[in-house]
């Protein structure tokens, strides 16, 4: 029996802040379409069930397009059983209010609910964590060891104290050991992660289907489970499925003298990353840069913006001042640097920046540089 484990779709949610309006709109559509593509993939590859471990949405006001598309996915794939467990971002949504839910959509509550697949050989159990009852919840989980047991939860793996600051619940991994769980399907962490649960089973975060911001870099997709219902064994693979990936490329430009040098250094970083032109890129320049060197961030960004779907540049460099160079400099620059260095009222951490701004201004560079 084949099963897809996915989570954290965050359909219809906000995108990376620096995207243009058009790009943001396009990304929203792509993310929704990835969900549709996943269902089509499931149909084409004989997948019987799709587990959605939370955060399918993350706002209450879901657009009509998303609502209708999601419903349509359920309806046009009647042979697939969709198991939907709500997460901390899933408020009461339209699926709670629908009078006629699709018959192939199975939902969960705050108490354990178990469904059966493969003529009883596979059980799928889930509960929506919340409130103070989570401790009692773990104790009440009873599974038949003869079955292949899948348990669905949404939360951060941790100890058994739930956070009061936000609605994120914590998944007490320790409390779930030795409960005849073969596969603990988790959601909440947006990157694929797999660990051993106990002697019998494993737990896994499938990660999100598509990254939305640069805190969700790298390959995204779902986990494909292939269960041998006769022997009760599992093979599983992470399937990268995102239409676009996000990458953060860090380039140390300490030794770069010009903008073109910086571009070359960034390209070297990119070559290590398998980044494609359809991807979204954040470039972080790091290192100590001599304030006298030429560097035009706007030009550098323009080069990569043209190449990738989206690019942004962050200056993480620290201005470097070779004070010895300015010791005997009779020019205004030299006088200025000496004045900065000798000024007790300027904190040491500010001095490199004050010098950079002053030199840039003297050389009539754009005085609007940010840090």
């Amino acid at each position, binding site marked *: 029996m084949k099963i897809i484990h996915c989570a954290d779709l965050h359909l219809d949610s906000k995108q990376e802040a620096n995207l243009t309006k058009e790009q943001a709109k396009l990304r929203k559509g792509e993310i929704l379409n990835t969900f549709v593509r996943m269902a089509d993939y499931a149909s084409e590859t004989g997948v019987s069930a799709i587990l959605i471990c939370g955060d399918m949405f993350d706002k209450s006001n879901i657009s009509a397009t998303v609502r209708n598309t999601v419903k349509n996915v359920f309806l046009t794939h009647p042979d697939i059983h969709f198991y939907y467990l709500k997460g901390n971002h899933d408020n009461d949504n339209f699926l709670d209010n629908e009078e006629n839910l699709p018959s192939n959509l199975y939902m969960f509550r705050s108490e354990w609910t178990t469904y059966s697949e493969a003529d009883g050989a596979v059980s799928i159990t889930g509960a929506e964590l919340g409130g103070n009852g989570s401790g009692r919840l773990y104790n009440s989980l009873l599974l038949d060891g003869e079955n292949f047991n899948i348990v669905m939860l949404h939360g951060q793996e941790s100890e058994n104290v739930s956070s009061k600051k936000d609605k994120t619940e914590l998944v007490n991994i320790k409390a779930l050991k030795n409960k005849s769980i073969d596969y603990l399907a988790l959601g909440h962490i947006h990157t694929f992660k797999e660990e051993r649960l106990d002697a019998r089973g494993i737990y896994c975060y499938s990660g999100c289907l598509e990254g939305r911001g640069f805190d969700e870099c790298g390959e995204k997709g779902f986990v494909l489970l292939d269960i041998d219902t006769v022997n009760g064994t599992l093979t599983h693979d992470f399937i990268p499925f995102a239409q676009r990936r996000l990458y953060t490329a860090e380039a140390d430009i300490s030794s770069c003298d010009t903008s073109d040098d910086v571009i070359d250094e960034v390209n070297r970083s990119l070559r290590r990353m398998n980044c494609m032109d359809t991807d979204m890129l954040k470039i972080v320049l790091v290192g100590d840069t001599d304030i006298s060197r030429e560097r035009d961030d706007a030009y550098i960004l323009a080069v990569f913006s043209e190449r990738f779907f989206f690019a942004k540049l962050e200056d993480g460099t620290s201005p470097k001042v070779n004070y010895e160079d300015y010791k005997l400099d009779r020019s205004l620059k030299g006088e200025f640097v000496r004045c900065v260095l000798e000024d007790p009222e300027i904190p040491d951490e500010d001095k490199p920046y004050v010098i950079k701004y002053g030199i*840039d201004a*003297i050389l009539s560079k754009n005085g609007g540089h940010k840090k």
Partner: protein
Amino acid sequence: MRLISAHIENFGKLSDVSFEFDQGLNVIFHENGWGKSTLAAFIRAMFYGLTGAKNASILNSDRKKYRPWQGGVFGGKLVFETKGKSYLLTRVFGGTDSEDVFELRDYPANVISTDYGTKIGEELFGIDSASFLRTIFIGQNDMVTNVTDSINSKVGRLLDDSEDLKGYEAALTVLNDRLNSLSPTRKTGSISKRRGEITGIDRLVKDGKDLYKNLEELERMTDDLRRRQVEIREKLKENGLVLKKISEAKAVKTIKDHREMLINGHKAKADALEECRSFFKDKVPTKDEIDGMLEFSSELGRKEAERDAFKSQHQEEEKLKQTLHNAEKDAGMNSMFILGIVLTVLGCGLCMAGLITSSIPFAIAGGAALCIGIVLIVLEKSRSKEKTLNLLNARNAYDQFLEKKSTYDKLDRECKDISDRITGFLNGIGVKAETNVNSQLLRLRDRADDYYDALVLEKEALRALSDYEKGNKGVLSQTDYEDLPNENDVEQERQLLEDELEKNRSLLPEYEARKNTLREQIDEWEDNKETLRRLKEIQQEEKLEFDRKAMAKKVLERAKENMTMRYVGPIIAGFKKYYSMITGESADKFYIDANTKVTIDEAGLQRDTGLFSTGIKDLIGIVLRISLADAMYPDELPMLIMDDPFVNFDDEKMSRVTSFLDMVSAKYQILYFTCSEFRRVI
């Protein structure tokens, strides 16, 4: 460098005029209006070109101001020497800069030279036109010397080093522009504007901090409401059961009451029946019987009437009988004897009939006839013919009478029979016969009718009761419910529950709508929070940038001051020297800053020299300009053009101007213009 000669084709009022210049002091003495200032302007224009935009006023445009009224070639020639080489500089001025003609030739070789370009003034003197005016050209009433960057740069001798001191103003502009655009105090500053935005969004975020709590509260209220709905439905169910019990109890009671009613009804009917029946003591005659008796009674009446018609003849019987008797007595026995036989037989027959029918009258009648018959037999024997005739007559009469009597008797018997029957009937029913039997019978019939009606009613009541009991056997066998609450109370409770259910039913969608609104607000609030976070981040970054750039600006200003101060020293030294030379006084009370602004210590404070007299100002200006020239041109000295600068000097100062000029002209080529003989001969 020094000027050698000048030829003006046409420039202002000067036309076709030439000059030769010597080393040192060159005094050009002409009356007012001759064109001394025009000559000075010509020299400047030859080195720097003409100033003034196309649409500038004549006062602000040298081109307009000095265009020759008389027409002709607007321009001239200048021969000068610099760095050991002489040049012939020719300029012809057109309507605009682009129409101007510039030509430089080696002199006297007259070969075109490319040693300098159209900006020859800047190249030779290292300063721009404005700076030239403020240093080399010393005009009257124009002693204000605000240093320009090029002056400072020249003073600092930093021409060779990327002109960064010259770029100080531009650097300051760049910093100021950025600081202004960031400014936390200017309305247009992004930090200031963002502060307002942050305050606004912060307020929104603060106002919305209870949204989650409100949503939780609303969710709790919704859950409570839903739970309450379940409770109400349960209570309604229970209430329904109670009502059902009450209803059943009522139904049972109704049934039982109805049965009771039927029982009572039946009892009443039975009592009525008994009352009717009790009238009859024994048997209750049927209607037919009574009707039969009534018929008998009617017949009796008829027969009695008929009989009574014979009744009056009954008294005659005795007479006839007597006669017959007598006749028979007389006739003998035969008729009497036959009669006697007949009566005897008749009597026997009646007796037999009476016995059979148990009719006493029959029996009595039979006995009587028998007796009479026997008697007659006996008597007959004793009569004869007359007797026989009499007897026949008597017998006939008597026979007739007897016949009548017989009829009467028959009728009477019949009446008696009927009467007996009626009486027997009445006795049979335990009623004593009354005189007016018919009336009695009619009353009896009414009574019987009553009885039978009552019987029917009683039977009906009994059947109804029986049927009812059969049909409601189960219910009737039930025990009564005990301790049931008051139905009105239960109904009232139900109504209250239903009202509450209905009210809650309409509240739930309202709560859901409010929750949806709250969720939208929460989404917006989260967006605001994120926006606030970003804005605060940007604000912090910009503030940091602002502070650092402000520091940079401050230090830059200080650096520039330090630099210029380094070179202001020589200016101060020169100033003091020349001031003392002209005034004979010390210049210690004068201060010169990095911008070569001169102040004077008067009454303990540094005072702006602009407050002083024109003469003092001119003195300061001249001294300062010479000092600047000393500082700016330590090597290749320029010429100095003085356009009657001592016009406002008093006599005492004028007395020292000669030695001053001697000293200065030992170093500089001076072109000294004056219109005063007095100032000429100093």
